[in-house]
């Protein structure tokens, strides 16, 4: 189709689709008038049942934990896909002579960037870890903490060179950590089955104080594994993408 034709056909179709969608949206109860009952029931029983004050995490890793296993494996499959598609192919060399020459023209990293990156790396690791381990207490959890943990590694890339970043996160290890994270979550479910309960039942002791770090049974444990997996997945993805900057120079040097 010619672009102009396509635009017209699309505009007609979109007008219809949007009108149809709006027609349905106006059947909703109105913004701010959530009718329940799912949210209201969870809000009233989650604290009592799971000892988690962070209800969203209780939903994510407890009541709808099985959904989260699936989502986590989507992440896992996507990372595996990126590794497959961006693998080194025939005719591509990883480090051409140009890249390794001693007198190559290295654009200097700005001193300010280097300093900020190095100063921030430590606190960000701690912050990410804190987020990942406090799923049951506050608006945090494995997903959020994992992404922030991954950014700490990316700061290493910003502060220095790509090769240093690669040394910190070798592919085999990152792959393995990712798999342990994903498999760990699924395995916790199986552990519950091993105890005669349904898959992913919260079988660990709930702790004394709701919202403490060591409370809410399996929720913080699952959150920990999720954090591992998400962090490893994003480090892997970024490493693969950055590696392409080396590989794209086919036929050089």
């Amino acid at each position, binding site marked *: 189709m010619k672009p102009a034709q396509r635009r017209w056909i699309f505009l007609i179709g979109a007008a219809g689709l949007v009108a149809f969608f709006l027609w349905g949206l106006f059947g*909703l109860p109105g913004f701010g008038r959530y009718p329940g009952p799912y*949210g209201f029931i969870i*809000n009233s029983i989650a604290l009592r049942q799971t000892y988690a004050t962070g*209800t969203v995490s209780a939903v994510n890793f407890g009541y709808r934990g099985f959904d*989260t296993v699936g989502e986590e494996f989507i*992440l896992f499959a996507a990372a595996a896909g*990126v590794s497959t598609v*961006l693998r080194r192919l025939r005719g591509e060399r990883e480090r051409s002579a140009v890249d390794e020459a001693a007198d190559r023209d290295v654009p200097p990293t700005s001193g300010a960037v280097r300093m900020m990156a190095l100063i921030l790396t430590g606190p960000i690791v701690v912050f990410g870890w804190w987020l990942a381990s406090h799923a049951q207490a506050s608006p945090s959890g494995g997903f959020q903490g994992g992404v922030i943990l991954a950014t700490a590694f990316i700061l290493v890339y910003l502060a220095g060179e790509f090769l240093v970043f690669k040394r910190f996160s070798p592919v085999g290890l990152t792959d393995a950590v990712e798999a342990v994270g994903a498999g760990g979550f699924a395995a916790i479910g199986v552990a519950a089955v091993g105890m005669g309960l349904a898959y992913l039942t919260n079988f660990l002791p709930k702790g004394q104080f709701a919202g403490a770090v060591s409370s809410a049974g399996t929720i913080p444990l699952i959150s920990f594994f999720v954090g591992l997996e998400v962090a490893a997945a994003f480090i892997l993805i970024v490493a693969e993408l950055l590696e392409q900057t080396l590989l794209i120079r086919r036929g050089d040097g």
Partner: protein
Amino acid sequence: MQYFPFVVVAWILAVGLYGIVTSRHLVHQIICLIVVQSSTYVLLLGVGYVTGAVAPYYFDVKVHTPAVDPVVQALALTDVVVEAAVTALLCSFAIQAHKRFGTLDPQELASLKG
């Protein structure tokens, strides 16, 4: 204005789809896909809101205080992280496509036709 957020949802969806359809750059197209998914986040979070209610975190708030729906927040937060990874997968297709075809224009990727 009770339905304003939902009108925004439909608008974002339309904008994203328009971007995909008229795109001449693969990365632009992939980002427009993210825009389409953003409309679903607005929808999910919008339907779960309760006027005058607090966040569903009971650390310092008593249990029976009216709170917003935690379920949609849980759905949206996992979706955001997963979408980032799926976008990375699509971008990796784009990188390889650029290497093979020499162009990132979806209308020039002509090896499959008919």
